[in-house]
Each structure stands twice: as C-alpha cells, then as structure tokens.
C-alpha cells in the first residue's frame, strides 16, 4: 500500500446559494482543489462524488458523471458515493484506497449538497429518510428527535447539563465568525440563549431537551480534495504534504432501540480505534479535531468516544474550555457543522479540507492551532449507525 497525500483542497462558502445548482457548487469547489494542487499536465484518473440527496431534492442522479463532464475530466472514472451524512468521508476513504492500492494515481474527491431550495419541512423529511422505513420513519421521528432522545439519556446517565451543551454552541459559533466559509457568522452569548428571560424566544426547544442553538443549520455547499501518492506529491506540490495516516469505519444497528446501551456510540469508538491503530498513535497525539457536531450533544459524545475524555466528562471539558483553541484538544476550530453548516454530502470532505489547512499551518491567528501535526475527523452517518474517522498528518 502506498502512502496517500492530499495535494489540493478547495471549498466554497456554505450557506444559502440560490444562484448555484448542485453541480455548479461541486465544480467550483473542485476547481479550487485542482488550482491548489498545481497539477500541471497530470490527468485526474478518477472522481468520487459524495452526495446524499440529489435524487430526492434535485431529482438528479448520477452526479459524478455530471461533474466529470462539467469539469471536462473525461475519460476519468467517476463514482457517486451515497452514505447518508457520512457520504463525504466515505468518498475520501474510497479515494484513498484507490490511490493506496496503486490502481489510480490522481483522484479527485468532491462532496456537495443543495438543501435550501426546498422548505425546512421537506429538508427535515429528506434527512429523516435515513431512519428505519418501517419502525421509525412513519412515526414522524427526525434526526433532531433522535438526538433529543439521545441527549436526555445522556443527561440521565452522566449528569450532562444544558449549560455544557450551550458552551459547545457558543464556542463553535464564536470561532465561526472568523471562518469565511461558515454559513453562520453570528456570535451568541450564554445570556442570550440560556439565562435571560428572552432566551425562551431566542432559543426555543426543537426536540426536547435540545434547543435551536444546539442544532446545525440546513446548508448548501461543497468541498473537494485531490489525492495522489506521497512520492508524487513531494515532486508536484508547493505545499507541505498532508498524508492520510489512518482511517476507520464501523457500523451499528439501524435503530437506536436495538443497542444494548443507546448512549454507547460503538461505531464512533471502533472507527477511531481503527484509525489510531493504522496511524500508530493515540488520542493524546491529536492536535486538532473536526467532530460531527450536527447537534451539540454529538460533539460532546464523540469527544468521549474517540478517547479525548472519559465517558461523561466531555460536557465538563467543553464547559471548562478544554476544547477551545488554546485548550488541550481544540475541537471544531472551523466552527464545525454548527457554524460552517451541514450540507450533508459535503461535510466529511469539508472536515478534511479544514484539517488540511490546519496541518499546512495556513490559517490566520484565531483559528490556527500552532504547530499542529496530527488532526482527526469524525463523520457521523445515520444516528451513529455508519461512522468514519480519518487521521491526517503533516508530512515531515
């Protein structure tokens, strides 16, 4: 197996992009990655496109075929990867395997989603199609609803509080104001969303006990990375190469109710463990992490399940500022899904783009983790039934 490097990255600002089609967004992000790589006359051998909802929301399928045509990358191989909200990291993983195996040399991975052209009512229903079609979906359960049930169980078992979740929301939206790619660039305060009488109106319950500011926005957006063998990257790129040091993926039961302990996100633990084993490091070696905070509870729970904190300690750590920039393990210095946004197919790729910028030491003060060598991502599919973790390393 060959070492695989990220030779180029690109992202377009997330948010509401009424003027752009899904393929427009994928193409713009891909061109940025191609330009960043300075590929010269090297051909792109294969393209993997992460997208969850093209068939439902845009009535468009075969998105990868459309993208290679739009970019005139013919006759590159092209595959669309649909793995729910974990589509992005799944596509990256498939790209890494293709390069590592020696079959392809240059692989473009792009992830994108266009969710704002339908009503919130429809977008919520679209995401809920990943629940079990017979024993969950008919009841009107939503992903916020799944997260709400999970949060209450976590509160009952570990004493997690709203104040702890609020600390995550404030942290991520504060740093999001510094991210030009973020959908939400509005700072929030504890008084405004938790303590003042107005907080009931400012921050209503969406899925008890979760409130509006516990949830990510519904976003349009796209991100892309270009992969090649490390040895080729050293010759081609002006950047310090960033390598995929490890990856892992695991699944769990489709329904939360069939898990022996529904607060135990086994797939997160297993995916991270696989990635750590492959990279030959442990959680203590990670300098910066992008965790899948579609809801504040998920950042807390994932920070525990990947091994940064003991079970039940993640909320306390967030409240104590241990996960802020400058803390012992900065989490979601991009603003995370909470502020950057969550165009579902784009998210796993965007996490890799943000970690690559961190490991190249290219971000401005206020966002850059000084001296970062290792970064970790968690891309959380379903409600924890299909999870990927990637570990990236700044190549010496």
């Amino acid at each position, binding site marked *: 197996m060959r070492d695989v490097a990220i030779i180029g990255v690109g992202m377009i600002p997330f948010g509401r992009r009424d003027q752009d089609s899904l393929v427009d967004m994928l193409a713009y992000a891909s061109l940025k990655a191609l330009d960043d790589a300075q590929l010269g006359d090297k051909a792109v051998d294969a393209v993997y496109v992460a997208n969850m909802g093209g068939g439902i929301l845009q009535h468009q399928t075969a998105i990868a075929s459309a993208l290679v045509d739009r970019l005139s990358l013919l006759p590159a191989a092209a595959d669309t990867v649909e793995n729910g909200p974990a589509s992005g990291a799944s596509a990256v993983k498939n790209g890494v395997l293709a390069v590592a195996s020696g079959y392809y040399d240059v692989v473009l991975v792009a992830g994108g989603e266009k969710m704002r052209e339908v*009503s*919130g*009512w*429809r977008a*919520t*229903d679209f995401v*809920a199609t990943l629940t*079990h079609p*017979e*024993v*969950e979906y*008919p*009841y*009107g*359960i*939503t992903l*916020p*609803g799944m997260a*709400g*049930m*999970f949060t*209450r*169980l976590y509160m*009952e078992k570990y004493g997690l509080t709203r104040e702890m979740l609020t600390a995550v929301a404030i942290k991520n939206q504060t740093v999001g104001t510094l991210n030009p790619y973020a959908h939400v660039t509005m700072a929030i305060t504890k008084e405004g969303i938790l303590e003042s009488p107005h907080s009931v109106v400012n921050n*209503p*319950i*969406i*899925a*008890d*006990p979760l409130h509006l500011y516990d949830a990510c926005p519904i976003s349009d957006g796209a991100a892309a990375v270009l992969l090649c063998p490390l040895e080729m990257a050293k010759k081609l790129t002006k950047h310090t190469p960033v390598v995929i040091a490890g990856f892992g993926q695991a699944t769990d*039961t*489709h*329904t*939360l*109710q*069939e898990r022996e302990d*529904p607060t135990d996100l086994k797939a997160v633990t297993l995916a991270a463990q696989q990635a750590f084993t492959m990279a030959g490091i442990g959680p203590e070696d990670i300098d910066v992490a992008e965790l899948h905070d579609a809801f504040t509870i998920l950042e807390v729970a994932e920070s525990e399940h990947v091994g940064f904190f003991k079970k039940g300690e993640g909320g306390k750590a967030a409240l104590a500022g241990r996960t802020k920039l400058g803390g012992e393990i900065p989490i979601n210095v991009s603003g995370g899904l909470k502020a950057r946004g969550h165009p579902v197919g784009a998210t796993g790729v965007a996490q890799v783009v943000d970690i690559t910028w961190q490991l190249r030491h290219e971000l401005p003060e206020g966002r850059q983790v000084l001296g970062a060598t290792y970064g970790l991502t968690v891309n959380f599919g379903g409600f924890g039934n299909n999870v990927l973790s990637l570990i990236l390393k700044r190549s010496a």
Partner: protein
Amino acid sequence: MSEIKITGYKCKACGRVHYPKHEQCLTCKGRDFEPLTPDGNARLLAYTQIFNLPWGFDERFLIIGVGEFENGIKAMGQIKADSLDKIKTGMELKPSWEPVRHQYGEPVYGLKFKPLE
C-alpha cells in the same frame, strides 16, 4: 381497538429479541427465530417532543418515545400526551394500534402509547 401489528423475533439459539427483523441474530448469527407479539404494557425507555416536524405532519408537535414490552420487544411509537410535564423515563405505557399519520389521504397505522399515572 385493533391488535398491535408488530412482530418481534426471538433467536432460538441465544434468546435475543429483535425488532425490527434481522435475517441473522445480532448476537450469535443464528437464523431461526420464534415470532413474538407484544405482551402487556410497555415501559418508557427514551422520549422527546419534536416541534420541527417533517413533511407529512400538520400537528404542532409530536411526542415520540421508545417503549419496552414485557417480553423484551423494544419499539418506537407516538406518545399520547399534551406535554412532557408528566412523562418520565421508566413509566408504564398502555399500547394501542392507531393511525400515526396520513399519506395520500389514507391513514398509516402504527404504535401509540398512553402514559399511565
């Protein structure tokens, strides 16, 4: 009230109860199952009240929970309550089989739980 049309599956090899159906047991990979119907009342394991509903629902909110029946079947259902004020994890629930939504003008039947004081 019509019968509750849920079938659980108890692995004949190890006894694990499954709902929904799996072709192989989650614990031992066994393929022989004894069909089970829900037995008696249920105990509330988890719940939430959702205010941002998906397409297809006109209600102002839904209260949804997971109940565990006396024979081990765990199933999601809608909870018949006006608020969460009297809802508690571990409380007893009386199940029923009623319309839980409408699609294309037709009722879709499913599990509902009435909280018992």
